C-alpha cells in the first residue's frame, strides 16, 4: 500500500497551526496559569499575594467538606452514568423494533437533547417546587415529603433525575445508530440459534454494541462530572447551603463567588489531573480492547 504524505515538512505544520494556536491560547495558557495560581494566595484585585507552596492542596486534603463533596460527586457520577445509559439502551432497543411511526417516536425521544442544562434545571425546579411542583406532589402522595433545597437527599435525587433526563436522548441516538449498524445477517443467524429475545440481546446484540457503549461511558462520565454544572447551579438557586454539589460547582463557588483564587485554582488542577487520568484510561485500556469495526 502506498503511503500518502506531504511533499514538504512545513505544510502540515502550517495547516495544524490554527488548531494548535487555539489549543495553546484557550487551554495550555489558562491551565498553566491555574497551576501557578494554585501555589499562591492572592488578593482578588491583584494587589497582594503570598507564595504558599502546597498549602492550597493540603488545605483541601484536610478539609472534610471537600472529601464529602468528592464522595457525592463520585456517587452522582455513577448514578447519572448508569441510569442514562441503561434507560437509553432500553429505549433504543424498543425503538429499534418499532416499524410503524418509527420516526415520530424517535423524534419524541430525541428532542430533550436540545434543552440546555440550565433550562433542564429550571424545569426540574418547577417540577419539584416545594409548594406546588407536580413531581413533589406525586412523591407526597406516596408518603415521601419531598423538599427540594431543604433535604440533602431530596435535592440530590432531583439533581440525578434531571441530569439523567437531559442525557438520555444523546445516548439514545448513539445506541440506536449502533443497533442499526448491526448486520441483518448476524441478527437472522441469531434468530435461528435462540428463540429467547432476552438471550439474543445479551449474547449477540449487547457485545456488538460494546464499542458504542464504551464510547458513551466516557462521554457520560465527563457529562456527569462537568456538564451538569448548569443543572446543579439552577437547582441550588446559586445558594448551595446544605445542598449537595459537585466538585466543578465547588470550584465555581470558591473562585467566582468567594474570590479565593488560589484555593479554587488548586481544585481545578485536581480536576485537570482527573480528566487526564480518564483520558489515559480511555486510550490505553478501552481503545486497545474494543474493536470498532
Amino acid at each position, binding site marked *: 500500500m502506498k503511503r500518502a504524505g506531504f511533499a514538504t515538512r512545513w505544510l502540515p505544520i502550517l495547516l495544524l497551526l490554527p488548531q494548535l494556536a487555539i489549543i495553546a491560547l484557550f487551554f495550555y495558557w489558562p491551565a498553566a496559569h491555574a497551576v501557578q495560581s494554585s501555589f499562591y494566595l492572592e488578593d*482578588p*484585585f491583584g494587589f497582594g499575594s*503570598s507564595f504558599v507552596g502546597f498549602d492550597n492542596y493540603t488545605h483541601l486534603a484536610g478539609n472534610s467538606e471537600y472529601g464529602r463533596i468528592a464522595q457525592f460527586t463520585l456517587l452522582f457520577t455513577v448514578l447519572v452514568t448508569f441510569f442514562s445509559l441503561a434507560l437509553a439502551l432500553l429505549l433504543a432497543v424498543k425503538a429499534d423494533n418499532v416499524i410503524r411511526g418509527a420516526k415520530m417516536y424517535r423524534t419524541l425521544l430525541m428532542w430533550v437533547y436540545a434543552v440546555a442544562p440550565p433550562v433542564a434545571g429550571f424545569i426540574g425546579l418547577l417540577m419539584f417546587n*416545594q409548594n406546588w411542583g407536580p413531581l413533589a406532589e406525586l412523591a407526597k402522595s406516596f408518603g415521601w415529603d419531598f423538599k427540594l433545597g*431543604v433535604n440533602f437527599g431530596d435535592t440530590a435525587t432531583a439533581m440525578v433525575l434531571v441530569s439523567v433526563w437531559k442525557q438520555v436522548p444523546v445516548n439514545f441516538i448513539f445506541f440506536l445508530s449502533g443497533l442499526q449498524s448491526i448486520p441483518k445477517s448476524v441478527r437472522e443467524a441469531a434468530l435461528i440459534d435462540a428463540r429467547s429475545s432476552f438471550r439474543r440481546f445479551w449474547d449477540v446484540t449487547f457485545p456488538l454494541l460494546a464499542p458504542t457503549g464504551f464510547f458513551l461511558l466516557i462521554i457520560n462520565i465527563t457529562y456527569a462530572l462537568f456538564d451538569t454544572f448548569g443543572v446543579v447551579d439552577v437547582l441550588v438557586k446559586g445558594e448551595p*447551603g*446544605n445542598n449537595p454539589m459537585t466538585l466543578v460547582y465547588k470550584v465555581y463557588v470558591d473562585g467566582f463567588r468567594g*474570590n479565593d483564587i488560589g484555593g479554587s485554582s488548586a481544585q481545578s488542577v485536581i480536576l485537570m489531573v482527573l480528566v487526564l487520568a480518564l483520558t489515559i484510561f480511555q486510550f490505553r485500556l478501552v481503545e486497545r480492547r474494543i474493536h470498532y469495526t
Partner: protein
Amino acid sequence: MKNIAISTAAGLSMLANAAFAETEITWWHAMGGALGDTVNEVAEGFNASQDEYVITPVFKGTYEETLTAGIAAFRAGEQPNVMQVFDAGAATVIAAQGATVPVQDLLETNGVDFDIEDYISGVRYFYADADGKLIGMPFNSSSPIMYYNVQALEAAGVTPPVTWEEFETVTAPALKEAGYTAMSQSHLPWIFVENFMSRNDLPFATNANGYDGADGTEILINVDPLKDHFTALTKWQDAGYFEWFGTGWGDNQTPFEEGDVAIWFGSSGSFGGLSQKDLGFDFSATYLPYWEAVTTEPKQTFIGGAALFAMSGKSDAENAATAAFFEYLTSPEVQYMWHRETGYVPITTAAYEMATADGHYERFPAAETGILQLSLDASENTRGYRMGFYVQIRDVMNREFGRVLTGETSVDDAFNTIEVEANELLARFAQTQN
C-alpha cells in the same frame, strides 16, 4: 500592561469627551426586576438634572456576580466608574486599597460638602475604614426586621413579641393554637447571626470586629448566646413554632405571603415588594426581638444591602462625574424617592425628615421600622464587621445551619465546624493581603 490599558481607556474617554462634550460614566449594579427599574429611574433623573455628565447603569446579575465581574474588569483595566458591592463583599473591596477611591476623598476633592453627621447613625461606619473615613457610599441600605400578619396576631390575641422569651412562651403557642406556623426567616447568617450579634450587643470578631486589620482576626461565633438561640430554633421547629424552607430567600417568604406563617424575618427592603402584592391580609413590621437573658439594653442592627464604590484608575473628569452623581444620589429628594419605591432606608437625616414631613410613615408605618431600628442606641459592637472571604464564611454557616435544621448534625458540632472553617478562611484571607 494594566497601566497601558488604563491610559488607553483614559485616552479613549477623552476622545469621547471631545466628541460629545459630556463625560460618560458607567455604573455596575445587582438590582434586578422592579429594583432595576428604579435604578434606571435614578440614573435618568441624574442625566436629566444636568448636561455635563451621563451615567449608564448596567445590570450584572447577583451581588456575587457583580463583585466578581468588577474584580475581573479591574484586573483587565476595564473597571466601571461605580460598582455596587454588598455587605459580605465589603471586606474584600475595602481591603484592596487602591482598587477604589474612598468616597469621602472623592467628594472632598471635587468640592462636594461632606459631613458624616448628615448620615443616619446606623449607616455611618459599616462601609468606613478603622478611622471612620467613608470608603463606600451606602446605597440600598436595609436591615433585617420582623414582619407580621396583623390578622393572625389578632386572631391569636397577641402583640408582636419584643423579646425571644415572649415569643417562646406567649406568642408562638398562641399562634399555633390559632392554626399558624409562628415564624420563618429568609437568611440565617444575616438575620440570626450577624444582626443577632449587634442587636444583643455581642462582639462578632476579634480586632474590633475585624476593623483593625485582617491579621489575626478571628470570628467569635462559638458563643453560648448564639448557640442557645439555635438550640431554641430546633426546639421551636419540633414544637411547630418555626419552619425552615431551605437556604433560598423566596422559599421562606412565600409561606408568609400565603398566610401560613404569621411572623417572617426579612429585609426592610422587602417592604416595597410586599406592599405591591395582594396578600389578603394586612402586614406590619417592628424591631428584631432580643434575648432578655443576654441583654436588657438591645442595640441597633447592622446596615445590610450594598454600597457604591468609586473605582480607581479613572480620569479626573470621570471622577468629577462620579462625585456629582453621588451628590445627586444623596440629595433628600432622590433618597426619599428611592426609599418610597423600594423600601430601602434613606441614608441621610434630611431625607428621613422629608419622608416624615410628607406623611409617608403615617400612610405606611412599617416603612419606618428599618430606619428606626438603625437609629437605636449604638455600641462598639454595632458599627459593622470586616471579615475577608466572608461570602464563603456565610456559605459555611448556611451549610451547617441547614444540617442542624434537617437533623444531620448537632448545634454544638455545627458551631465548632463553623468556627474552625471560618478561622481558616480568615487566616487564608490575611495571607492574601501581604
